[in-house]
């Protein structure tokens, strides 16, 4: 696999590491009992603790800890029995305490890995350095008043998991696949809602470039990207920027960058000299977090089947390709839908590949077109199963089935109903098909002559005409066979 990008002078390799911030799915905040509901009116979900009133103290939300442990298990990572909350000190208007409670030296989760799957069937492991728990900050609103900044503390104190990868990523696509995979795992685990638009999942990207085989170059960090599209754009832009500097003899300054989503460009936010000294130290208001092996064991038992396990199961049980299986398992709702469809009729188990295709191409494209989600698909898994069964038993052709699916999608009727009402059953009566073919042959004597003179390509023409005459209902294989027979007899 060639991951190099061409500069003016040299070929370059990108070296990318991601810090993903995933909001923990929890009804209340990491250290207070305030609600975490998204989109509530400003400052309506702020406790005395969240507002850092004098004398207020944080108390750990055990559920958030369980969620982090669960996530660690899902990332094949080491769970640390002992971890410590530290204070990360800096001033900002939306940081009421003047420090963020985070984990620095002793994170709750240590080294792990996730696997990403490529279309060509290969896969790659991305190593994870750590996962730690921390508080989110509030929000500064600069656009409400020309001379003032307003602060909304609803988000202040919400639990985040920061998942840090090793710099194992080499292309923007890999970065996209990696974050998709993390998102998928978190959603299977139900530890994060995965909603990137609402900011439940966002990433800081560390990127440097080097000539193949060289040491790592100086990196820049692009902050707070909240879509896979922006992540790829930002990486591409930033890599190009760095390459241009290096090829013109310059050197990279270690900067923290912001990505402008409308221009598609990155710009420096602060450089190394301006970098904060966060003065981390253990938060004296909180005891070290100790989790027993028993507790971890109990949490492990509650973990559902994860995408990779499910993927392997699908490959084994249904003989699917690695890629098909990974597409099916990327989102829990897809694998659930597939499971329900294929289990709706025992016959379907022998046609798994057809089931995959009908879900991931036909149904997905209809859902996309109509801006709908698989979760509220108008076509239920049972109904799709019924449709596929009609295809696999030759009752209708694949071509007609597409029309039937569209009808099912808009009318909500079952495949059976539609096929019966419209009389779409495939014609499998030899005599009836022969009759149609005879008619086509009789109507096109010139074409028959040309065909017999060696213009084999015309076979398609005859098939088309005959199919049209049968209103698409003729069994294609039978039609083909009989047509060939009849034409060859003329010879």
């Amino acid at each position, binding site marked *: 696999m060639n991951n190099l990008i061409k500069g003016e002078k040299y070929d370059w390799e990108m070296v990318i590491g991601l810090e993903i911030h995933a909001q923990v799915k929890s009804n209340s905040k990491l250290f207070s009992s305030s609600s975490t509901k998204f989109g509530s009116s400003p400052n309506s979900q702020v406790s005395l603790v969240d507002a850092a009133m*004098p*004398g207020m103290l944080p*108390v750990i939300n055990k559920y958030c800890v369980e969620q982090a442990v669960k996530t660690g298990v899902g990332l094949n990572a080491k769970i640390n029995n002992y971890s410590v909350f530290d204070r990360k*000190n800096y001033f900002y*208007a939306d940081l*009421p305490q003047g420090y963020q409670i985070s984990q620095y030296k002793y994170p709750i989760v240590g080294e792990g890995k996730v696997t990403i799957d490529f279309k060509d069937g290969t896969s790659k492991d991305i190593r994870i350095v750590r996962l730690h728990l921390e508080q989110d900050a509030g929000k500064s609103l600069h656009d409400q008043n020309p001379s003032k900044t307003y602060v909304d503390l609803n988000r202040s104190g919400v639990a985040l998991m920061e998942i840090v990868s090793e710099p194992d990523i080499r292309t923007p696509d890999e970065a996209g696949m990696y974050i998709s995979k993390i998102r998928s795992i978190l959603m299977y685990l139900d530890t994060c809602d995965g909603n990137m638009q609402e900011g439940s999942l966002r990433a800081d990207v560390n990127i440097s470039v080097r000539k193949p085989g060289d040491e790592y170059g100086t990196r820049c960090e692009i902050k707070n990207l909240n879509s896979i599209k922006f992540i790829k754009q930002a990486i591409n832009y930033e890599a190009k920027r760095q390459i241009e500097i290096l090829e013109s003899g310059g050197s990279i300054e270690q900067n923290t960058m912001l990505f402008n989503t409308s221009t598609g460009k990155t710009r420096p936010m602060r450089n190394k000299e301006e970098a904060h000294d966060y*003065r*981390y130290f253990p938060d004296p208001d909180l*005891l070290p977090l100790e989790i027993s092996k028993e507790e971890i064991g109990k949490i492990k038992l509650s973990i559902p089947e994860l995408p990779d396990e499910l993927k392997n199961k699908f490959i084994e049980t249904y003989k699917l390709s690695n890629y098909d299986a990974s597409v099916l398992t990327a989102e829990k709702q897809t694998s659930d839908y597939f499971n329900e469809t294929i289990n709706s009729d025992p016959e379907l188990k022998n046609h798994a590949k057809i089931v995959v295709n009908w879900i991931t191409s036909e149904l997905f494209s209809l859902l996309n077109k109509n801006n709908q989600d698989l979760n509220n698909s108008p076509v239920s898994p049972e109904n799709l199963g019924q449709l596929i069964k009609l295809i696999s038993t030759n009752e209708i052709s694949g071509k007609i089935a597409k029309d039937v699916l569209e009808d099912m999608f808009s009318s909500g009727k079952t495949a059976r109903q539609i096929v019966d009402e419209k009389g779409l059953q495939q014609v499998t009566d030899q005599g009836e098909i022969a009759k149609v073919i005879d008619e086509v042959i009789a109507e096109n004597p010139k074409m028959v002559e040309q065909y017999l003179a060696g213009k084999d390509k015309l076979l398609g023409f005859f098939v088309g005409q005959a199919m049209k005459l049968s209103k698409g209902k003729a069994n294609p294989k039978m039609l083909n066979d009989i047509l060939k027979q009849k034409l060859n007899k003329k010879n």
Partner: protein
Amino acid sequence: MSKSSLKQTLKDLDTKKISIRELNQDYLKRIKEKDNLNVFIHFSEENVLKQLDNLEKDNSAKKLKGIPIAIKDLFCTKSMPTTAASKILENFNPTYESFVTQKLLDEGSIFVGKTNLDEFAMGSATNTSFFGNTINPLSKENEPLAPGGSSGGSAAAVAADLCLGATGTDTGGSIRQPASFCGVVGIKPTYGLCSRWGIAAFASSLDQAGIFSHNVEDASILLQSIAGFDQRDSTSAKVDIPNYFENLDDDLNGKTVGIPKEYSIDGTPMEISKIWEDAIKVLEKKGVKIKNISLPHTKYALPTYYIIAPAEASSNLARYDGVKYGFRSDEINSLDEMYENTRAQGFGREVKRRILIGTYVLSAGYYDAYYLKAQKVRKLIADDFNKAFKECDFIVTPTAPSAAFPLNEKQNDPIKMYLNDVFTVPASLAGLPGISIPFGKDKNNLPLGIQILGKHFDEQQVFNAAVSLERSYE
């Protein structure tokens, strides 16, 4: 000294010898008379009368019903403003009641006012308050003395008999040292015995609420009232709180007292050494075994304390930024300017000094040499005590290296001021309970204090030893 006592007053109230109203009017009168001491940051007669009215309507029996209590102005209170003696919290009115003060309210006590302290409890003389010095009630005319600090207002309130008890907080000696200076009893319990919830933080790993009172019995009654587990404070301890008063036992026969040799330091006035020896003699007479012990890391306690406490303070005080509540400077052209001017104008010199020290010791490049090392030494100091307590039941030392000093002394010499904490800081670092009781006088007839330290959560032993010494002294 007044002969007031909470124990006696509770009896008098019970036998209707005196009414709650009479009692409090007596105290109100005295508070107004002693206005010149500047004991209170907040005092409102109207507020006290309102509490009285409400209590008189309340028919339920309550342990401290009608007892006038003074509250250090570091405890957040709903009915009175809370300033931490800082301009930055001037006019701050909490919407919540601290755990400790809520317990006192639940017991039916009356809050006479919020007492003065060193700004954010940083000081040893109650002279860093934005609201001016408090004067030690034992001062002679024209020779004002410091009441000690940081809980100098509370200590003075008890000494001047402006209340029957007061709350304080002790981070490195802020209850014990002013108790010693003002000739009253002051107990700092084990770290974790009283919830810190609702107390403006100075140094979270050291701050602990406690009690000032006229005598040991009263302290034992009041401490029981403010102690207890609180799930809102993760460092609060889940321990049973005994009835210290009922269990008081002045018979120390067969007990062992530890006398740490490291507490004999050069330059300690003779009078201090003498009361220490006197106390040991008294104990010996009572059948207590005297055990010379060693706490070898004692000499590192002060520097350790003055790294850890400012480090935590520098972070704890970051929330006072002018954004959400409290003082905000008028001179603002940018966010940074708001921080700079608000904090420059809102904090006093000593607070700023400690924020600077704390910021420095936590900085990249210095953290290991200062903060991390201090944490390690802290552990060694705690280990010293753990070892010592295998050989003794309690430890006796002087409380402070001097009697109350003149108000303006040491004002400009922070190191001298910090040395006041030399005997109290080690127990704070180890989280141990300690009490200071008046025991003897210096040549100027000023009270001196003896400190009794106990094992973790063994406040009962501390009280027993204290009451025994107190009774023998009287």
